[in-house]
């Protein structure tokens, strides 16, 4: 995934005729498997031999929002806090009517901006 992000940035930088990329801003939804720490870690390794080397990575995390087609509920994703599971588990069970809801926000992985030197 991080590879794809970097490829997109490099492609755009090339199109713009940039000599160096100095900052990249990403938006990552909390409902993806992408952890900011993991992305940061692989980013630093993967940019090593590119014009992105040494660039600053800013990541904004976006909360998950679900929507229920049965009752119209829209809001933040509920969590089950059963002590048997040790950790709070996010759930798609609608907090109002208990039917299955859908994720409408929190699945993004977007490049918001790139700062570069031409």
């Amino acid at each position, binding site marked *: *995934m991080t590879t*794809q*992000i970097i490829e*997109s940035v490099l492609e*755009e930088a090339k*199109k*713009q005729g*940039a000599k160096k990329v*100095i*900052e990249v801003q990403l938006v990552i939804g909390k*409902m*993806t*498997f992408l952890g900011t720490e993991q992305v940061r870690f692989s980013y630093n390794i993967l940019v090593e031999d590119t014009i992105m080397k040494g660039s600053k990575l800013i990541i904004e995390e976006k909360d998950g929002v679900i929507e229920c087609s049965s009752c119209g509920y829209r809001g933040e994703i509920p969590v*089950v806090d059963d002590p048997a*599971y040790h*950790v709070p*588990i*996010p*759930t*798609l*069970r609608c907090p109002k009517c*208990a*039917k*299955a809801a859908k*994720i409408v926000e929190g*699945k*993004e*992985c*977007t*490049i*918001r*901006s*790139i*700062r*570069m*030197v*031409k």
Partner: protein
Amino acid sequence: MANTKDVIKGEEVTLEIQPGMNILEVNKKLAQKNMELLRKHNVKAIDIMGSIGAGKTCLIEKLVQALKQKYRIAVFKGDLTTTIDAERIRRHGVQVITINTGRECHLDANVVARAVERISLEAIDLLIIENVGNLICPAEFPLGTDKRVVVVSVTEGPYMVVKHPFTFMNADVMVINKKDLAETMKIDTKQLEKQVKEIKPDVKVAVTNALSGEGVEELIKALEL
């Protein structure tokens, strides 16, 4: 990336990218195209995901055996390097296309679209895709199938569901495989089923033994085949 706005400060340029450059979104659009193409040819498609060794290939072999009278089947097999699984499935007399994923840990809608070009959609009614063995990444990359299946086996321990909630949120059907080992592994499959339904209330669950074929009938029903 059409909608860009340049803010020029001397030599430094900030490129602000407008919403619409969601990398996952690009895959989703391609998946939508795959689905439309398959639907147009009346081909049902199933994406089988799950960890390495969960029993994906064994289950596909059993599905093919049970369904090959009813459907003309093709199988896509995403693999890092080998064609072992492809050979195992090919023995059952169906067309198998191996998609070499190189170092990617999942299939995406683009590689599936290219594989679809290599087969004749007129000649098949059912496409089964074995994804790369990985419980995490494939879930974020829909391929354009009607159903998405996640296979877990009881040997993966009691926490595989609660540790990967997002994987199961993307699944239509969950298979709990290797039920024959549940007792030895001290795993209560009912408990796993309860957990997954807590995370995704409308998921269907099949408990199987892919070696004996037990539960495969249940799986076929869950897949509406």
